[in-house]
């Protein structure tokens, strides 16, 4: 683990940083308005004219995005004290972060207090001590995201615009009034001022009125964390340093939740309260011991050697419980927030308890490194590490993984024969490296083990006194051969600087082969009849080029700079375990089937589905390519329809400084990746992205490019390339303008340095993707799949930076 720690430097310094950020939702997909919604569902014949006449005032046109999101504020204050000398250093800081997220009201907040104390001291000629510590306390509330069933982001897209966000008692429609007068369905939620959150008569689904979704449950988390490391460095003889270092993290988190009684629609309601609470603590430590020897022979030969070991343990422990009411038991004694604690639950509420069971994970490693350089001209290094995983991760026989690495370097410009070119070429260095790395992915929980566990309780009596037999069966097929996943990387590159370091260039070519990829949750075949244990299922090859160019130029007092980087990536699955030769299914979308897949000859987790041919001019139904020419559209016609991985990612930074003014513009982008949009569904009468309906087939628009309303085969359409979009984008991540007060002025105010700045962050995005943020999609086997993840907000930042 490599941690960069802040160290005190120079004479005593006090710094204060302040940042104020205004954030709002950046990019909102366009959906149908009220009239378009009505026309669509009338066309589809899925909602009757009467229903519209009875339930719409022909005026309401709710924009749910405005209901759900608002511009919100984040504040960040940091105060730092630091000093350093040749004896040691001190760094102390405290900071406060207050963030109220973009969901309306105070439903998503994150507040954090952080303190830091880093120090080191050379207490003896042969002993240096060092300790770095950070403690923080945080409090948060959050909303649901990133699932096709319960995401606030999806709700704002899918709810109909015909329903108002709130209704008063006077203008409340019948479908809500009916609930007011009963108790069995739960309560209509309101803002407390007589404005009841609207219930749609058109859309019943898991995604509710965002205000109900926000307020029907409360979930708060608090926690603290103390982490850091303390080390002793002995220098018994010249050139030799022994280090013994202990790293640690102690944390505790508590959760508290209330599920209110509420009514959101006919399938989503509750007439009782549920309470939950949890307390978890975790401890982690890592103890490393290593010896480092380095020596210079003569003037030119410099060699060093290192050997060491490391052991780490993390332990988790927690308890959680809940009290939940039922249809004829409210759950708590009074419907009052002061009673929403376990002590005031009804005696008949259903109780549940879990936890009270510690879990451990431990790791052991030995490592060593040899390096040599000749006058900074020729460099060579060799290292080897051996890692062992504990028995909850890998079978004992395969617990060890051995990972060597080697690298060579040649600083050509250090050669005598290069002296003549020095004027133009400041530095030129060639590098080559090869190495292996190990990963155990997310393994744990004895997933390789073929063990017997309970499958439930089976009653042996019909009623009354319960007799049960607990069923026991193997949890999975087991895999004794599970081992480390290894990635082997070969890299060759060069670094160059020209024209008095004003132009720099770095080029790298790499080839990375991931072997024995660990895949969990796979099904080799359903006739096996049991879940499969994780397997080392395949090899992936990645290769690419990374280029970075920088240029800096001073024109009078104007300093200009530009920096550009670009990386290409080619990714291909080259091998797959024979028992899985047909490929492995990844993430799925509703009940429409698997939409990502891992298969030889394709990019890892490519998008898998039908190829949309167009709309049948006569029927308005979608048509697909019959790839195997068997006359019907079936499984065998599914194919690669995209990939989440980008071919090229790039970044561009422009800087300018003139007198006290500085400007930075920084952007990133990607190209060649696709996004699988899971923002629509066809099984409920939900609102849809305009993209999918505005040019739909109708009897009068037979050239429409998207299927008619209520078309057949929409389950295939949803997993066809019609729902796959180019994920190319370029986003200006930051435009920052700063001003530093002239030194003489700030000194008069007893300040060494004063800088103010303002910045637009994540403000401009250029993309054709009709969904939310092209930069934020799923990860792992759902890379590039958009199920309504919380998008990056756009931010206006004002900042102040003062040093005393």
């Amino acid at each position: 683990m490599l941690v960069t720690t802040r160290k005190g430097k120079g004479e005593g310094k006090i710094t204060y940083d302040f940042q104020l950020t205004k954030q709002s939702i950046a990019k909102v997909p366009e959906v149908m308005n009220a009239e378009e919604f009505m026309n669509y569902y009338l066309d589809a014949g899925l909602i009757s004219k009467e229903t519209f006449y009875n339930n719409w005032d022909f005026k309401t046109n709710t924009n749910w995005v405005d209901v759900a999101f608002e511009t919100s504020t984040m504040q960040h204050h940091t105060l730092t004290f630091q000093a350093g000398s040749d004896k040691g250093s001190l760094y102390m800081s405290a900071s406060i972060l207050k963030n109220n997220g973009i969901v309306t009201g105070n439903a998503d907040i994150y507040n954090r207090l952080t303190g830091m104390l880093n120090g080191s001291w050379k207490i003896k000629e042969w002993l240096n001590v060092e300790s770095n510590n950070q403690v923080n306390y945080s409090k948060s509330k959050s909303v649901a995201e990133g699932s096709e069933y319960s995401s606030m982001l999806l709700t704002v897209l899918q709810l109909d615009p015909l329903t108002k966000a709130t209704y008063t008692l006077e203008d409340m429609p019948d479908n809500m009034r009916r609930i007011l007068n009963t108790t069995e369905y739960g309560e209509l939620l309101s803002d407390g001022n007589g404005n009841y959150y609207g219930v749609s008569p058109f859309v019943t689904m898991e995604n509710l009125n965002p205000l109900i979704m926000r307020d029907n449950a409360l979930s708060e988390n608090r926690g603290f964390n103390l982490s850091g490391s303390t080390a002793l460095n002995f220098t018994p003889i010249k050139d030799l340093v022994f280090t013994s270092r202990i790293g640690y993290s102690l944390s505790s988190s508590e959760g508290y939740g209330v599920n209110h009684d509420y009514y959101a629609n006919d399938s989503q309601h509750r007439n009782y309260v549920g309470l939950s609470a949890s307390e978890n603590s975790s401890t982690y430590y890592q103890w490393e011991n290593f010896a480092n020897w380095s020596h210079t022979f003569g003037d030119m030969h410099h060699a060093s050697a290192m050997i060491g070991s490391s052991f780490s343990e993390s332990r988790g422990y927690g308890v959680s419980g809940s009290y939940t009411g039922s249809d004829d038991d409210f759950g708590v004694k009074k419907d009052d927030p002061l009673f929403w604690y376990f002590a005031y639950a009804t005696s008949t509420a259903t109780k549940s308890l879990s936890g009270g069971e510690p879990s451990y994970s431990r790791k052991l490693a030995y490592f060593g490194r040899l390096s040599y350089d000749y006058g900074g001209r020729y460099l060579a290094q060799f290292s080897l590490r051996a890692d062992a995983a504990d028995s909850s991760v890998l079978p004992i026989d395969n617990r060890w993984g051995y990972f060597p690495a080697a690298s060579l370097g040649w600083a050509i410009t250090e050669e005598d024969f290069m002296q003549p070119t020095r004027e133009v070429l400041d530095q030129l260095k060639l590098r080559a490296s090869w190495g292996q790395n190990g990963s155990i992915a997310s393994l744990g929980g004895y997933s390789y083990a073929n063990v017997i566990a309970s499958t439930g309780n089976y009653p042996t009596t019909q009623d009354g006194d319960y007799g049960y037999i607990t069923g026991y069966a193997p949890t999975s097929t087991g895999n004794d051969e599970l081992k480390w996943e290894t990635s082997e990387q070969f890299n060759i590159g060069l670094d160059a600087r020209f024209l008095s370091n004003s132009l720099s260039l770095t080029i790298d070519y790499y080839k990375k082969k991931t072997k024995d990829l660990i895949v969990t949750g796979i099904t080799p075949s359903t006739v096996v009849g049991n879940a499969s244990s994780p397997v080392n299922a395949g090899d992936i090859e990645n290769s690419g080029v990374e280029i970075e160019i920088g240029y800096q130029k001073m024109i009078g007092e104007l300093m200009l700079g530009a920096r550009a980087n670009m990386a290409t990536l080619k990714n291909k699955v080259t091998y797959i375990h024979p028992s899985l030769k047909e490929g492995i299914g990844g993430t799925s979308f509703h009940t429409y089937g698997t939409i990502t897949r891992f298969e030889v000859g394709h990019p890892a987790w490519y998008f898998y589905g039908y190829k949309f041919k167009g709309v049948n001019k006569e029927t308005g139904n979608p048509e697909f390519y019959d790839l195997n020419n068997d006359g019907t559209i079936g499984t065998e016609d599914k194919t690669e329809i995209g990939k989440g991985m980008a071919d090229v990612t790039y970044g561009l930074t422009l800087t300018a400084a003139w007198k006290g003014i500085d400007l930075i513009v920084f952007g990133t982008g990607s190209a060649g990746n696709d996004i699988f949009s899971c923002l629509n569904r066809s099984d409920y009468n939900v609102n849809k992205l305009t993209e999918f309906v505005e040019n739909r087939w109708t009897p009068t628009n037979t050239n429409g490019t998207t299927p008619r309303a209520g078309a057949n085969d929409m389950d295939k359409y949803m997993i066809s390339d019609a729902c796959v979009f180019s994920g190319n984008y370029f986003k200006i991540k930051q435009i920052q303008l700063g001003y530093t007060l002239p030194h003489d002025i700030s000194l008069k105010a007893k300040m060494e340095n004063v800088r103010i700045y303002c910045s637009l962050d994540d403000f401009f995005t250029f993309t054709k993707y009709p969904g939310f943020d092209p930069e934020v999609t799923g990860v792992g086997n759902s890379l590039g799949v958009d199920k309504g993840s919380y998008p990056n907000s756009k931010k206006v930042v004002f900042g102040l930076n003062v040093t005393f």
Partner: protein
Amino acid sequence: MKRTLIYSLMAGAMAMGFSGCTDELEISQHGVLNYETYYQTDEDAQAAAAAIYLQMRGLAYNYLIAKNCLTDDFYAAGGGRNDNADFEQLNEFTFTPNQNLLQGMFESYYQIIYKANVVLGHVGEDSETKLRCRAEARVFRAFANFELTTLWGNPPVVDHELNSSEYSRPNGSTEELWALIESDLKEAIESGALKSKTSVNDKDTWQVTKEFAEALLGKAYLWQGKNAEAAAEFEKVIGSGLYDLYSDYENVIQVSAKNNCESLFETVRVYDKENVFDNWDFCGAMLRWRLDKMEMTDEFKAVFGTSQNYGFLAPTKDLYDAFVAEEGKNGYRLNATMKTYDQMRNIGMSLIVGQSIINEGYFMWKWRSGIDSCPSEGYGFCYTNNFRWMRLAEVYLLAAEANLAAGNQTKCDEYMNKVRTRAQVATKSGYTLADIQNEKRLELCGESVRFQDLLRWGLAYDKLKDNGARCPQLQSNGEVTYVTYNNDVNLYGFKKGKHEHLPYPETEIELNSAIEQNPGW
């Protein structure tokens, strides 16, 4: 001196860092047992068998909904068009190999087979209990293979726990599968280890019995056209004297009549307030009437509750008419099986004005479930009624058919009349196959047998070719209108050369290169 001190300190630190750590990497797993050493005791054997019962119980949802959707007796129904489009696809024969219920059913059968294979592969034969568990495993394996064979035709044969080199299983041959079904059932029966009920009123025997195995064997014979053998097996069940038709047809599959004298096998659920979610079962919620669109009287609510009612599987008028033709509008069995909308209104439930549901004017009564089988602690998602896998009426009707085919009209008439007497329908003699077919449709409607029967009788095309042609919409005033969703006659309804077998699930086709899809899919 100082140097020595430092060195020894360092040496100590290093040594501690390097030593004793691999032992720390052994962390024992909680709450599990060792696969290598389990399956030794009687208790282990029963626990392994209980896992099959649990698997079987979990199958009921897909089993009931899928098989009844695949008939002319029901509309998929639900909250509205496209509400669980999966059900509609089955009901209208527009489904593809990517069909969740069929996939779920297919996987469940193989999970039953797997768990049975675990018992047969690991449980010894050295005690009465172990022998019984082994015999039960064979019965379940035969049940699963019977279902797989009659629905899919030639599914892979899995007669032992597969190792990783055997994961790609080719199709089995139908003959091989029938042979395995017969030999499993015969061995189970002949082992003498299976239980039997102690008397006709024994409600406590919860295990699969010898008689259930015999009935399954009879069914396997009948499907293969071995009519005399089939009749002989059914005769054993009937002759055992351990079963009788339950007099109160209205409650024959109700929670109030669990394990009644007519049941050959039920999987058990109980109302246990502290462990309601041990009885999680979505099935009850899916089949309950769509009450959120209804106005109900307080009396009605007191019996049927109001939560989690999704209103799937609404009877067809065709089924209602078949009842009326046989026993008249006021027929005892008809009224015990389903109610008309008018009758429901009298009971206390009517559509809210302006609301409509997919329904042709009929509501299932036989499988109604109220708060007595749906504890409020389970939020409507728990269902405490047992699932009936077979009851004596089915055995009688199978026996009637086998005897008729084997030339024994008297026996055929006797068994038909038993069923009809309880149903309070006039008895007669000289029943034909068509009579039996009609009787079975009425007696066992909604009990998941018709689709396989229609396939076997060769009537599937005739009866199911129009499924999906139109969809009824019941208005609050009782009027039924029809909507046409499927315009192209080539795209809905039972198709010859295709629907005689269900498709192997898409996932299996994708994963298993050795399996071949059924013709037409």
